[in-house]
């Protein structure tokens, strides 16, 4: 599994191969720290989190007298990312929601999760709660066809909460294990759209006690500092249980999740590394950081 991630990410290791080089050179500590700072900034970690990480690194390096800054940084990042338990709530039956800004990869990620749990023998159903975007319903419908899964959809322009309500009735009647709710992309700055999300969640909790078990914020790894505001706002409106970090097969580092974890204590749970249903990895801080620094 790590191999797959590494392989996918290795194409674009230029930044972190530079990191390797600089680890091996024996220059003064401050100079090394300065370069690490730059590398973290270029990975979208953001100024304040980078500052925090670097000063933590400086302290540790001083205390331990260690010259192996690489090992220290790795540890520092792993600690940061594991400060919250990232275990996926795999109790069944369950309803999971995918939420996030436009074009981040919600629909594709829903399909990936569906495929994953279907492969484990779970009975999975999809709900197309994006009734706004052109052909959003068709997109999920085609995924259902491809994966041979039922998809509940509504009319274009219908109230998404009512589509979800219908899906839940069918989900309960047919005794399925997992209902994945694909929601429309929305920017967190539209309060009416955020309220809509709140409503969907309310309908789910009302119909099934303890649901939704997972509300995953789909975060595009190419996004910079706005990721933090997104996480904060989506969390405020719908409550986030974890992050699904997508498009890690590109050259973006996805370092903004470090800032999100640092500030909001939200765990990353899954990673998307391609456009096919198979391109999904469960998150592991070690492998993420390892791949990041390798």
């Amino acid at each position: 599994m790590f191999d797959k991630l590494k392989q996918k990410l290795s194409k674009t290791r230029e930044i972190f191969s530079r990191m390797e080089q600089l680890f091996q050179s024996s220059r003064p500590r401050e100079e090394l720290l300065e370069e690490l700072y730059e590398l973290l900034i270029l990975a979208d970690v953001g100024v304040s989190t980078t500052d925090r990480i670097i000063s933590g690194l400086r302290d540790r390096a001083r205390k331990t007298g260690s010259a192996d800054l690489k090992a220290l940084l790795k540890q520092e990042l792993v600690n940061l990312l594991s400060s919250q338990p990232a275990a996926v709530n795999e109790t069944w039956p369950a309803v999971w929601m995918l939420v996030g800004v436009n074009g981040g990869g919600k629909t594709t990620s829903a399909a990936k999760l569906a495929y994953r749990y279907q492969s484990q023998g779970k009975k999975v159903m999809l709900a197309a709660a994006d009734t706004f975007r052109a052909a959003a319903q068709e997109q999920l419908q085609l995924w259902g066809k491809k994966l041979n899964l039922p998809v509940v959809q509504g009319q274009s322009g219908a109230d998404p909460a009512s589509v979800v309500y219908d899906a839940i009735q069918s989900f309960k009647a047919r005794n399925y294990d997992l209902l994945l709710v694909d929601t429309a992309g929305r920017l967190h700055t539209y309060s009416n759209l955020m309220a809509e999300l709140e409503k969907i969640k309310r309908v789910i909790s009302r119909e099934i006690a303890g649901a939704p078990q997972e509300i995953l914020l789909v975060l595009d790894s190419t996004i910079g500092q706005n990721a933090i505001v997104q996480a904060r706002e989506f969390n405020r409106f719908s409550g986030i249980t974890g992050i699904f970090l997508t498009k890690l097969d590109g050259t973006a580092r996805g370092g903004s999740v470090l800032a999100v974890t640092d500030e909001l204590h939200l765990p990353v749970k899954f990673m998307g590394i391609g456009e096919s249903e198979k391109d999904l990895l469960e998150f592991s801080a070690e492998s993420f950081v390892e791949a990041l620094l390798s």
Partner: protein
Amino acid sequence: MFEQLAEKIQRTLKFIRGEGKITEKNIAEALKMLRLAFLEADVNYKVVKEFEARVKARALDQEVMMSLTPAQHFIKIVRDELTEILGGEAKPLTFAGHPPSVFMLVGLQGSGKTTTSGKLARYVKGLGRNPLLVSFDLKRLAAQDQLRIISKSLNLPFYGMTAEKMKNPAEALKELMTFTRNRGYDPLIVDTAGRLHIDEELMEELRLVREILEPTEVIYVGDAMTGQDAVRSAQAFEEKIGLTSIILTKLDGDARGGAALSIVYVTHKPIKFIGVGEKFDKLEVFHPDRMASRILGMGDILSLIEKAEQEADLKEAEEIARKIKKQQFTLEDFRKQLQQLKKMGSLSGLLDLLPKAGPFKKMGNLDVDDKKLVYFEAIINSMTPAERENPRIIDGRRRARIARGSGRPIQEVNQLLKQFFEMEKMLKKSDFQKLMKNI
């Protein structure tokens, strides 16, 4: 966000102002703060550094060093450089001398190509053109359906592409061009599948399509929320495919959009439009100066300050600002301000400089009419000092007297008072107060 950054730059400003004259040391300090603001706006780190070098070189210029208003000078340099890199004037779309023109949209997955294809089609239709939409995305599920539905909702023609046809791409493209030409469509708007810039195979495919279609516009559609990676992807598209222009999407959010600077910096291609919503009328012509302000996080507030300081009596302005802060703003102050505004040029022009978001959002709704301001001044001139200090004592009889004295209808007196009370209310809003603190 807005307040935070405004605050930071203001601190930088004050810092320089306090020193009286620019020295190398305080420029370094100001640049450091600027760097922070840029990084928070997601401008690429390397671009930031190069930008800094440019600003520094100009700021250390003799003329600036000797300037009596170094802060304004410094900020002006920053803004000028920023606007210049972003492209100066807004640039229009290029149409072919011999129709049909072909516009091809390319970019990473999910950046907004398909939606923007629809927006562009609607836009050129409004210019009296006759667009045809086609999508070469045969990869993403329902990609064809998406553009078909969009075309239908816009009442515009759509050319269906199929995997079957595309088995022989050269033939399929020739057929498409013949169809377009024969029916007199112009432009042909070509949506393409999202792809990673490191996917050599898909990039090569795109390059071939470009070669055959010879588009007049190859438009890179980029997401405004993109972080440091923006330079890498845009540069790769420019190098491997060749671009003519850029459209930045999702600017209706609160991302500061530093990617705009990064992308233009590495591709040297102009941003022509911005996407500001999911609906198809949410396409706007790009304004470099507004983008510069957004990246700096502060609207055109700086030029407002600049203008005010240059043209108005500084002491008076400070006194008014102080009163606004203490919420002791009276009609007498309003009159003084009107006089100053006259000196500074038209009020509508000034209001245009204010950022369209944040605490000033509501300002746009205020009814501004320059002629009216002259009348307002006349009306206030007819009031007694007591009335100006406390307009609440102005009853019906006083209103009639003031109307007579100023030669304006009584409705106008009422309107002035109403507007003044509105303004008073607005000034009490906490976000406005917060902002004033930083000025």
